[in-house]
């Protein structure tokens, strides 16, 4: 069993029609239920739910407070390499883009780790471009061993791996993985990924499940909203998260809500524009559908918007972000994967969270390796 046949059913369904036929009554019923089903989730994502955003926000706030308290877990990404073998037409690391390519060696990793650790952060997300030969599983494992000395929680956001490879990463000290499907639309997917190993839609779709099977503690999924009609991908992402939650109850399933951002190279025109209202509706519907699901909001979003949506379901945020390789220590001009909108430091973000009545949580996990 895999999520693939379930996703295929949604890909074959007349979703535009289904979203269009939702009534006010359907939305009200979904808001008032304690346990929502996929149909309720669809109703809350539909245009008919827009007049009910305030009611949804009140309930989302209460559910988030009850399940997660007044806390936001902070993390930062560390870009270890930007070599890439793919041609994702919306991405700055696209192999056709003429940008300087580099990869951090052990000493540079240690320097970056020290610089990040000085900010007090304990949760690190490491990223490479999608280049298995340059940034091999062995390279990632050896990097994790260095970084684990500074961070009790290291997560990976890299190319899709086999279950055995994920198990080796867990053994090396990785406790979380992030994998964005980009779009769940199987027809659109090859257009956006014309070349490279990432072209394999199903191998990527099943990657989060392989990570769950391999013993990963946290699995974070998401779609890059805007590549397809956002409602369609938002629906399939939530259904994917529910599938993983049901099948792997011991894994902490989280969802990111990234919107497409600009990057160097050819101008890419997204299929749909995701407004602030749309992104908010997506988050509220997701919180009501999956009350215990982690929700991550990255620095792709502007400071003011990030602050406004804080009480509506957010549980994790990035801070002190650079999307450049070695960006935490080197000041020479480089090209990042995408432009960020919120460049505030960890200290600045912490102050902002406190101002809004939230505790910035720097450490929420302790590696058990030393107690083996």
């Amino acid at each position, binding site marked *: 069993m895999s999520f693939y046949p379930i996703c295929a059913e949604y890909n074959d369904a007349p979703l535009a029609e289904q979203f269009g036929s939702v009534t006010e009554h359907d939305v009200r019923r979904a808001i008032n239920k304690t346990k929502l089903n996929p149909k309720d989730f669809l109703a809350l994502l539909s245009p008919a739910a827009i007049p009910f955003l305030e009611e949804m926000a009140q309930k989302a706030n209460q559910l988030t407070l009850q399940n997660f308290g007044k806390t936001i877990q902070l993390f930062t990404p560390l870009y270890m390499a930007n070599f890439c073998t793919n041609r994702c037409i919306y991405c700055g690391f696209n192999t056709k883009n003429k940008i300087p390519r580099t990869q951090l060696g052990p000493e540079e990793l240690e320097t970056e780790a020290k610089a990040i650790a000085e900010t007090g952060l304990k949760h690190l997300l490491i990223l490479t471009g999608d280049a298995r030969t340059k940034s091999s599983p062995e390279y990632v494992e050896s990097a994790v061993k260095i970084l684990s000395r500074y961070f009790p929680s290291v997560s990976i956001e890299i190319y899709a791996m086999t279950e055995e490879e994920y198990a080796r990463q867990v053994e090396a000290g990785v406790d979380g993985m992030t994998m964005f499907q980009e779009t769940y639309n199987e027809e659109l997917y090859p257009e956006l990924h014309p070349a490279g190993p990432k072209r394999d839609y199903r191998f990527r779709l099943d990657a989060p499940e392989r990570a769950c099977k391999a013993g990963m503690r946290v699995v974070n999924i998401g779609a890059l909203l805007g590549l397809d009609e956002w409602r369609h991908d938002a629906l399939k992402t939530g259904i994917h998260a529910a599938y993983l939650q049901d099948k792997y109850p011991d894994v902490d399933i989280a969802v990111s809500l990234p919107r497409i951002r600009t990057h160097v190279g050819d101008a890419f025109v997204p299929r749909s524009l995701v407004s602030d209202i749309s992104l908010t509706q997506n988050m509220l519907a997701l919180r009501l559908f999956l009350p*215990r699901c982690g929700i991550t909001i990255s620095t792709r979003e502007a400071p003011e918007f990030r602050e406004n949506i804080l009480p509506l379901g957010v549980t994790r945020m990035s801070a002190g972000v650079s999307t450049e390789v070695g960006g935490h220590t080197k000041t020479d001009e480089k090209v990042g994967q995408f432009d960020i909108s919120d460049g505030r430091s960890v200290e600045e973000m912490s102050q902002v969270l406190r101002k809004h009545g939230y505790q910035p949580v720097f450490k929420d996990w302790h590696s058990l390796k030393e*107690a083996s």
Partner: protein
Amino acid sequence: MNKDIFELGGVEFDSRLLTGTGKYADDSVIPEVCEASGSQIITVALRRVDFESTTGNVMDFIPKNMKLLPNTSGARNADEAVRIARLAKAMGCGDWIKIEVISDNKYLLPDGYETAKATEILANEGFVVLPYVNADLYIARSLVDAGAAAVMPLGAPIGTNRGLQTREMVRILIDEISLPIIVDAGIGRPSEACEAMEMGADACLVNTAIATASNPAMMASAFGHAVKAGREAYLSGPGAKHSHAKASSPLTGFLHEG
């Protein structure tokens, strides 16, 4: 009234309210909460403790007079719980440990079998073990055999503030288990803590309801009073409840001696 002492793990306490450290908007309110509640035992998730922190650490806010009860939050099985307990001890958090083994992230219900396994291992190592479990007689008995210092049944799923949904099962534990029964999780209102104490629970642990209140210190105070009131009611022996009306013309009134 004689002084009512709560004995747990060989230590005597005046207060029967245990508190926690999670979900606060700001940890700096913790000392005020401890003071207002009168609590003397506080639980902290080891995974949150960061002794190297340059940005503040939850431990800095726990008053020195509180008995520290590290917990194994985040453990998915007995092995992980045991490792967290040993880490807590190695990090100087003492030898009391609250076992939480949860491998269901949707409902956060405790795994009784794995909890009993961890309890046995840690009790044999000399830990004072306080296991958080479902309100289940068989699990509770296995915890007694495993060497637990108390049994901590849930009132409702953790963090839900739904109250004492398991009251009938908790009542059975109170009647049948010789160890202290500490109702943990789910208690959302002081009246519910009071009810648990009236029933004869030995103590209550309350975190979410205090931490997420608009005024945590005031809510802590309310819980402190409620737990005390419930305990006094229990000790004073409340009149038995009658499930039927007392007939003014009894059906057995015709019976006479001789």
